[in-house]
């Protein structure tokens, strides 16, 4: 077991020093130390996608990512995508499509979709589904979520 120490990283473009065991899961640092509750806990095993965050642009399960693995890296959580005053195009599209039922998986969906649009601004439906394959939804909102991602992508194109 590693001892305490300080890990430096960027969270939503802000430098942060986390004073904790280096094997603290990133999700605990985000939720319990930085009070960023938007990253949701689902399984603790990287199997459901609810806790995804962007690490250098790639969606990673924050429940399975220890702090030491992200030292010096740039993390983006759902709060870093946008806010009610300045929504990310994906967040606006999720609202426009009412793309949720319970909304517990939504943060992870937005993160996976943001990573997709960053590397492929104009995905087709199959590419959207493939990009969301690691994210589980139990309520059956999948098709609305796909439509929302396509809507955000279409907005990108027209801008």
């Amino acid at each position, binding site marked *: 077991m590693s001892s305490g120490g300080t890990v430096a990283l960027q969270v939503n473009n802000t430098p942060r020093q986390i004073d*904790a065991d280096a094997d603290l899961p990133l999700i605990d640092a985000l939720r319990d130390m930085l009070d*960023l509750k938007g990253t949701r806990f689902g399984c603790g095993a990287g199997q459901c996608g609810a806790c995804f965050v962007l690490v250098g642009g790639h969606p990673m399960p924050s429940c399975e990512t220890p702090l030491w693995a992200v030292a010096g890296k740039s993390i983006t959580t759902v*709060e870093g995508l946008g806010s009610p005053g300045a929504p990310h195009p994906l967040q606006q599209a999720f*609202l426009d499509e009412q793309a949720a*039922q319970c909304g*517990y998986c939504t943060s992870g969906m*937005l993160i996976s979709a943001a990573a997709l649009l960053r590397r492929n601004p104009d995905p087709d439906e199959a590419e*959207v589904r493939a990009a969301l394959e690691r994210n*589980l939804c139990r309520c059956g909102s999948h098709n609305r979520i796909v439509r929302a991602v396509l809507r955000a992508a279409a907005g990108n194109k027209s801008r």
Partner: protein
Amino acid sequence: MNMAYAAATGAVPPGPALPGSLQRNRTLGQWLRFASEGQVDVFSGKVELGQGILTALAQIVAEELDLRIDQVRMHAANTDTSPDEAVTSGSLSVQESGTALRWAAAETRHLFLQAAAAALHCAPSALQVADGAFLHADGRRESYWTLAGRVVLDREASGAIAPKDAGAYRVVGQPAARLDLPAKVFGLPAFIHDMVLPGMLHARMLRPPSPAARLASADAAEAALDQARLVRDGSLLAVVAATQYLANRAAVAAAKRLAWETPLAAPLPDEQALPDWIRRQPADASLVAASPRQQDAVAAPPAGVFSASYSRPYLAHASIAPSCALAQFSDGRLTVWTHSQGIYNLRADLALAFGMAPADITVRHVESAGCYGHNGADDAAFDAAWLARALPGQPVRVQWSRADELAWAPFGPAAVVDLQADVDSLGNVQSWRHSVRSNGHSNRPGRAATPALLGSWHTAKPFPPLLALNAPLAAGGGAERNALPCYDFPVWQATSHRLLSMPLRTSALRALGAHVNVFAVESFMDELAEAAGRDPLEYRLAHCGDPRARAVLEDAARRAGWPGAHLAEDRGMGIGFARYKNTGAWCAVVAEIEAGVDIMVRRLTISVDVGAAINPDGVRNQIEGGAIQACSWTLKEAVRFDAERVTSDSWDTYPILRFSEVPAVDVGILDGAGPPLGAGEASVGPTAAAIGNAVARALGLRVRALPITAERIQQLLA
């Protein structure tokens, strides 16, 4: 366990009949208050489960009070200030809470209009009501808030002021954006998991390795703990620490060092032979219902007699969030924050479990992830309350593990359905016999003399585990839900056999018995049609005089391109239909499947009649969500177990449908007349049946046991 359950089982409530839940919560001020300028505070006893109910209720209140929807503030239910509406279940919230709020709001508006007219010395008819203001043509005005001190809402509803005619609706019936969605899309604190109480401790439960195991010693575990403490009562056990990290670490360390003993107990059934096991169990048999005549005097002797048996396995709720609860015990009072479906029912069981007076307990609802029935929410609430009582003054937060969520929450029961039909020379049904066998579908808190809470069965002085029951048919039934035919059979009967042994805890899961019953009935209808050489749609219509049933069948078939003659060889189309509970929404589903290595559902075309739709977009969302969940149940899901324990305790071992497997879904909402009928569960059974029928038509192979997996198909082909 909803209000329908209370009405079917409980004492007759006092006073003259009032609509919906007003019957048992009769004061206007229990439902509506104007304490804050510019908004109405609304108190419903129904809770948000991800189904959008609070938005639909807000639409109803805005409509009747002539407010904008953003002037309506919905309060989460709690036992201090909310009406007691029992459980949020059974697709009944619009009927029960919506009806109460509609009538309460209409009467409230009437009282304020009278008061405004008195204050302005005019006739009520001289006033326009808009955005909460009562406006006179001469410019003078009053409002709900200027008059709030003069109108007494602490009065019994009269039931004499009729709500608006549907023709006057401007908010109800229009798509409304969900009130709760922005917080969830922007990642704001929205769920019980996000709650923080000052100084709260984090707890993790340490469950037995199998349902029969008992804790022999925790000494080694306790000695190994670092910055955490162990709390134990008999075989009920938890670790508590200042952070989740420390609690998780302690739970891992402790779990390895606990000494359990397993008394000789009957092994769990063989999961590969569940239908045989179900048939061997002692059961409480009952006649559910039967046609008035049991013999058709004029009918010719049957030209054919058919029978078939269908089954489903145990199913898990598999919510995306693990159950969570917080509790605090101070000065003899217990406060519990929970995502339970029934806060008053939970309070009653907590009172039983701890020997407390219900008045000393407050239960507050906080949202969690989607809830599809009686999951681990109540059990987690007990866990938190138990720990809070062990650590007085200290707020405690419990979060279940994913493994416990999948292995220890109640399951939807496994079931067998036996069907028999006598047919005439055209293949039309002369008589029909339906028999369903399973554990009960209801094991919810708040109903028995002892608690229905998991942890209370593991303490040193344990309460006995409760056997699951079935609600009376008048309350929708359990196993027998939709065991009654939706067709005009001259002679029919339905029987139910509730098992008296329960190796795995079962309780309510979305649609209860309607899932397996509709799968069975609609599969059998296709088998009968095929035997008669008739088209499945024509065959159904020939047995169906209900115009609203015919309308959804014909609409779904037409939109889907029935019978799918244009489809490629590896594709097939199947149809399924039911009127949910025989009294709720009518729903027909046409499934188009592709039979490759696995069965893939490519398209679902759904037609539904839910009566008046409060929020059409909400109805669409619920119908589609139920259908996609039913795809997952039908193609993939089964609780796995060995002789001792449940083994499907991760998303690897309990897989659910993923994006690449989700079909296109086209929901058509027919113009429904009459009262709202609920939407949350209507599509589940018809979807399962439509998939099974599509598989049969694509492969020429009838799969009667769910789930319809590649392995199952290979077994049948072998």
